[in-house]
């Protein structure tokens, strides 16, 4: 029997996600996939495997998971309290989840989406070439307690590797380029948009993120008579009430609201990870500058594997220190140095 991971307790918005399902735009289905695509690349780098594997995406809250066999896992995206059988795990790192072990993941601390990857990837059936649930499109669904997820054969063995955590958490600056209706906005309205201090609204999901702000909205003149046009992830759509929405990977394929611009793909993980209330601003870039920024990001993704480093473990935090071969026979391994009252 193949190895599997059983979900014993599930947060309210957990789903399997990969890099999505491109190629169906003409038939009304957007790419979907992980809200934080950088996290998928990091998980692949930590486990030394392909970026095509799916991970469990957890919005806001994690869950509990039990392994049927020894398996490698990696934790990326928004940081969560993580432990295996009570032993704390470092985030943005790979670990061994032993057979019978229970992984506990708590609420997100610095962002919205945490990710759990497994060595070999989840071996659920693909639908139209992807394992990603497209919640808006009606493919797949949320994961629930009791779900048993099969794991593919794992060619790798390395664990306890880590990557630096990245700076995409807690909001910040979203860079954008002009899009179809940018010129329809008055200069004043556009300038005000780039100077406004926005906050991520509570109204946000895998389709789009509403921006909360003080002051009047950002309407254009011909707002209501725009013919329905193509929509792409990153588009900053100004809805009827004048508030911007940054559209995400499960957005519709077409829409009739004006787009003031389009957030660069490299900044969408930052948009996705901003927690409710996190400050966000928009910085306009000309096409040349945007191309340079996006290419730097793509080069960074390519170099992730080379930046994976061994996890330096703090011995004071290792509960069962004595089961590790630390002293290699220099003193008796059966003598417990802590018995004399020295607590780790």
């Amino acid at each position, binding site marked *: 029997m193949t190895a599997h991971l059983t979900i014993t307790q599930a947060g309210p918005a957990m789903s399997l996600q990969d890099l999505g399902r*491109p*190629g*169906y*735009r*003409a*038939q*009304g*289905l957007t790419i979907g996939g992980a809200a934080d695509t950088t996290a998928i690349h990091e998980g692949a780098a930590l486990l030394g495997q392909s970026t095509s594997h799916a991970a469990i995406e957890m919005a806001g809250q994690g869950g509990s998971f039990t392994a049927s066999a020894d398996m490698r896992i990696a934790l990326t995206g928004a940081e969560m309290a993580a432990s295996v059988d009570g032993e704390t795990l470092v985030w943005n790192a790979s670990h061994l989840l032993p057979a019978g072990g229970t992984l506990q993941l708590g609420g997100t601390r610095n962002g919205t989406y945490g990710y759990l990857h497994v060595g070999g990837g989840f071996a659920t059936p693909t*639908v*139209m070439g992807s394992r990603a649930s*497209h919640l*808006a*499109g*009606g*493919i797949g669904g949320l994961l629930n307690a009791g779900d048993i997820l099969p794991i593919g054969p794992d060619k790798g063995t390395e664990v306890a590797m880590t990557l630096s955590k990245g700076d995409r958490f807690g909001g910040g600056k979203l860079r*954008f*380029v*002009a*899009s*179809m209706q940018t010129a329809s906005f008055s200069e004043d309205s556009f300038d005000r948009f780039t100077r406004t201090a926005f906050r991520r609204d509570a109204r946000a999901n895998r389709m789009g993120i509403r921006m909360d702000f003080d002051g009047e909205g950002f309407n254009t003149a011909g707002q209501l*008579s725009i*013919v*329905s*046009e*193509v929509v*792409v*992830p*990153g*588009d900053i759509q100004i809805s009827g009430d004048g508030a911007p929405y940054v559209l995400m990977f499960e957005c*519709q*394929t*077409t829409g009739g609201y004006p787009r003031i*611009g*389009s*957030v*660069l*793909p490299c900044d969408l993980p930052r948009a996705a990870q901003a927690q409710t209330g996190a400050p966000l601003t928009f910085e306009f870039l000309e*096409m040349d500058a*945007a*191309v340079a920024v*996006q*290419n730097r990001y*793509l080069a960074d993704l390519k170099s992730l594997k080379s930046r994976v480093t061994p996890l330096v473990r703090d011995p004071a935090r290792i509960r069962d220190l004595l089961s590790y071969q630390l002293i290699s026979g220099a003193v008796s391994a059966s003598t417990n140095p802590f018995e004399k009252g020295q607590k780790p």
Partner: protein
Amino acid sequence: MTDWPQIRTVGLSGILVTFAAAMNEPANRAALALRAAIDTQDWPEVTETSTSLVSTFLAVDLATTPVEAMKERLEDILKSRDWLAAPLPQGRTLWHVPTLYGTDLAPQLEEAAQVAGVDPDAAIKELCTSRVRVLTIGFAPGQPYMGELSETWNIPRQTGLTKSVPPGALIIAIKQLIIFTNAAPTGWRHIGQTAFKNFRPDQPNPFSLSPGDELVFPAIDRATFDTLSASDTNGGASSEVLT
């Protein structure tokens, strides 16, 4: 002297060619024909193509593809023929989708007829013989926007929203019809109910319709509707090759 067609970039995600400022039949045909032509030429930079009502979208990674060169190639192809006079692309299908008009399953038929200024029987008579084309697919997977109906049906959206219409609902506004893929709220009026599924992700061909396909919605009674709903015939829909 014409401002059309327009070529615009869409973020770093691609290039859009728009043939008109508002929906019209020649511009819709032009968008379909241009998409077919680009698909035939199989440009290596283009990862996928799609159309909306009056435009053609080319998905191109503009971070790695110089945009000016792409625009020049598009200008050349646009100049090569009169796209507004282009025939519809090949490979289209005509669908017959049995439809229950009115009743409690499609409660806004009478209201829509009233807004259009015709009596309900005349409305059904016209609608069940009207042949419409898939102008574009969007909003939900496989969900068709079909038109154009006669000027009678140039009726506005309702001011409020219907909280939810079920999958297979046939709804109407602005000379267009939509079959809903999933249960969703709408500002259009619910005049008919079909058991047709636009999107069946578990099937080898998950999308029933393509842009350019044509449809008619013959009227059926409640008993027939119930029988078809319970069958696995995709609502009793039948199709024939058009071109």
